[in-house]
Every structure is written in C-alpha cells, then in structure tokens.
C-alpha cells in the first residue's frame, strides 16, 4: 500500500525550474534516501511533502491527505508528517519536555498528563529521558537533534522527513543520531531522508532515489544503484563521493 504518493510535481523559484515533474510512490514502512548533488532539488522535494515549499503543479498525498498546488490548509497533512531539520530548530525558550509536548498539547489538545507520558516515552526512545527538564542550549548538537526527533515522534506521524539531519553535527556526534534513525527504521517507521551519509543510506535505505537537475534520474535498491549505475550522471556522482 502506498503511504506517500507524489504526482507530476512542478516547482519554480522565480525563473528557475527546480522540480520538473516528480512522480514517486512510497510504501508504508519503506526507508527512502534522496541523494544527488546540491541544487538537484532533493531538499525542495522533501519540503514539498509537508507543504513547507509550495508548488505550482501536481499532487502530494500522504495517508489519504491530499495537497494540491496553492493549497494553504495543511493542518491535517502536517499531523501525519513529522520533520527533522539540519539545524535542529528546537525552541530555545522551552525545556526539552516542553519542546516535545507543545504540539500534542496545542494541536491535538491532548491533556497535559497524557502529553507528559508521551514526552517521556519518546525521549526514552531517543535515549534522553534524563534531559526532560534541561534547556536546548545545555545539550550537545547530537542530543539536540535527538530531541528534535523525539519532538516529531510525539505527534505520532505516519512518515518522518529528515533533511540532512547530521550535516550540522561534529563527526563524533553523527553516530548517536544515525543509531536513533536506524532503530526507527527497524521498528517500521516510514522514512524519507535527504542525506550525504552514503554509507548510512546504503545500509538502512530500502531504496535510493537519485535526483539530477530537478528530475528523478534513477532509483532502486542501494545494491543495484551502487553496483550498476545506469546513467553516467549517477556513476559520476558515486565516483565523486567515494
């Protein structure tokens, strides 16, 4: 069953045509890594899935919630799509626990007690239950990113979008974040990630989607793609990162 459906997506930034008709189906529980050079449109595609980027033509559908071009009512869709950012974007004026509880409380109107239970359980999942009362600036980058993952999970999303979530981290902190993502993948969470961690994408990804100049150039299992790139662009890209 397709959880995410993207049909004929077109997006311009001014005169720059950044997405040139994207079609993509993602099944429940699938882990998809979007790869490609910077400027290939992979981040824009990811951000279109929860409406952070608008698009001019096409359709995005997540678990029955449809998003058309120019649509502005995104509340239902966004409750089903979690997102984690490169720069963490935790709320600095709120404690870790409050960061995680904010959306369930405000958007879903979940009672405070229940929110606390949810917050503790998602923080436990990312291994940070003891940081419940800490503030974001008291945490390392890796811990902040794990809180950001917990914050997204607290809304019980059907799919989690990860936008280069390890790119802003010091090298020694990358693994603790990747370990959390790996656990989520193993538990059957549907994940769509833009990443430069090719080794990780290969290891955890069910499918790699190679984007080039606003189009999906090639896609397939990591083994297929890395062993037998069909296009010179992909071969070139793989060559450049190894």
């Amino acid at each position, binding site marked *: 069953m397709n959880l995410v459906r993207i049909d004929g997506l077109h997006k311009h930034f001014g005169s720059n045509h950044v997405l040139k008709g994207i079609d993509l189906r993602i099944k429940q529980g699938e882990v998809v890594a979007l790869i490609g050079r910077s400027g290939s449109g992979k981040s824009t595609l990811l951000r279109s899935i929860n409406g952070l980027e608008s698009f001019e033509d096409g359709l995005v559908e997540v678990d029955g919630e449809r998003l058309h071009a120019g649509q502005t009512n995104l509340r239902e869709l966004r409750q089903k799509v979690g997102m984690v950012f490169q720069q963490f974007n935790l709320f600095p004026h709120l404690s870790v626990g409050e960061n995680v509880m904010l959306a369930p409380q*405000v958007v879903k109107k979940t009672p405070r007690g229940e929110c606390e239970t949810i917050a503790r359980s998602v923080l436990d999942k990312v291994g940070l239950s003891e940081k419940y009362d800490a503030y974001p600036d008291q945490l390392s980058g890796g811990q902040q990113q794990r809180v950001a993952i917990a914050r997204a999970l607290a809304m019980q999303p059907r799919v989690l979008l990860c936008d280069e979530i390890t790119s802003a981290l010091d090298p020694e902190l990358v693994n603790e974040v990747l370990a959390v993502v790996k656990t989520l993948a193993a538990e059957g969470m549907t994940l769509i990630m833009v990443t430069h961690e090719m080794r990780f994408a290969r290891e955890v990804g069910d499918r790699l989607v190679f984007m080039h100049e606003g189009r999906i150039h090639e896609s397939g299992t990591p083994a297929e793609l890395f062993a037998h790139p069909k296009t010179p662009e992909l071969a070139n890209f793989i060559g450049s990162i190894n």
Partner: protein
Amino acid sequence: MNDISTWDVARNLADGAMWTLGLSLCAFVLGGVSGLALLFARIAKRTWLRRLAQGYIEVFQGTPLLMQLFIIFFGSSLIGIELSPWLAAALGLTLFTSAYLGEIWRACVESVAKGQWEASASLALSHFEQMRYVILPQARRIAIAPTVGFSVQVVKGTAVTSIIGFVELTKTGSMLANATYKPFLVFGLVALGYFILCYPLSAFSRRLERNSRESRTH
C-alpha cells in the same frame, strides 16, 4: 506679579507633570495594544493587510507629531466633532506610538530565526499558535529594551501637545514663565521634571539591555 513663590511654581509644575505622566501612560497602553494589532497585520499572509499596516506606519513615521496633532485637533472640528485638547492629544499620541511600537516589534519578530517558523509549522501549529507559543515569547525578550527605550520618546513627545492647548508640564511651564517673568527658573524646573520622569525609564532600558546580553537564551 512676584507674589508667586517658587513653592507655587514647583507645586503647579508637579500638577502638570502628573498630566504628562497620565497622557504618556494612556498613549503607551493604547498604543501598545494597537501596535500589537499592527504587528499582526504587518506580518499577515494577506497582502492587502500588510500594505495597509505598512501605509499607516509610513504616514505616522513620516510626518511630524505636531502636524498629526493639528490635523486631529482642527480636522475633527471641521467634520463637526469637537475633541477636547486632552482627547485630541491622547488620540494623536496613541496613533503615533502604535506606529513606532508596531515597527519595533515587527523587527523583533523578524529577528527570530526562520527555522523556528519552519519547525513549528511542520508540527502543524497554525499561524496564530506559532506566534503565541514559539515566536512571540522569543521576540518579547528582544523587544523589552527597545520598547522601554521608546517609552522615553513618548514622554518627551507629550510636550508637543501643549501647542493644541493641553495643559501638561510644558504648557504649565510656559504659563508660569509668563506670570513670574522667571523663564530660566521655570523652564529649568520643567526640564528637571522631564528628567525625573525619563531617567528611570532609560536607566531601566540600559539595565535590560545589559541583562539580555549577559543572560542565557531562556
């Protein structure tokens, strides 16, 4: 005419200073409320609302307060509404204050990192919820010092209302100067009065600025 003692002068000036204080408070509170409305309009999604707020701010920032008061005071009687100097002064200063506060606060809201909007949007918060729970609490910290600093401008701005006949500190001063023939003494005391009203505010604003530089982010 010299039977007006220095004590009488001081007492009358203190009376005038109370009116200055009252007008300042009134302008600040009402201007603050409408400034907040302006802020929301200024960052609204609807273009016409943003333009309207921007036009309002440009008009009130781009013309002298004195002209605004003249237009309100004399203009209202032209269309058949008699405004007392007090009402005209309060209305004029409120409009003036709201334009500046709206703009100061907009700058504070825009200084909150864009990622905060994106993160709260992706958690399905509405525009209003984003403002209330995420953006304004952070903007507020940045806004306190310039807001208190601007309140000093409001207090000094009230002096202009003496020209439309509102009897506050400056007007009281000029009446006393005429009566006593001691303009240097009287206006010295008037200046002292403004200083007593404004100094605590600017000292407070400086302290807040220092604190916000030193304090942590929460």
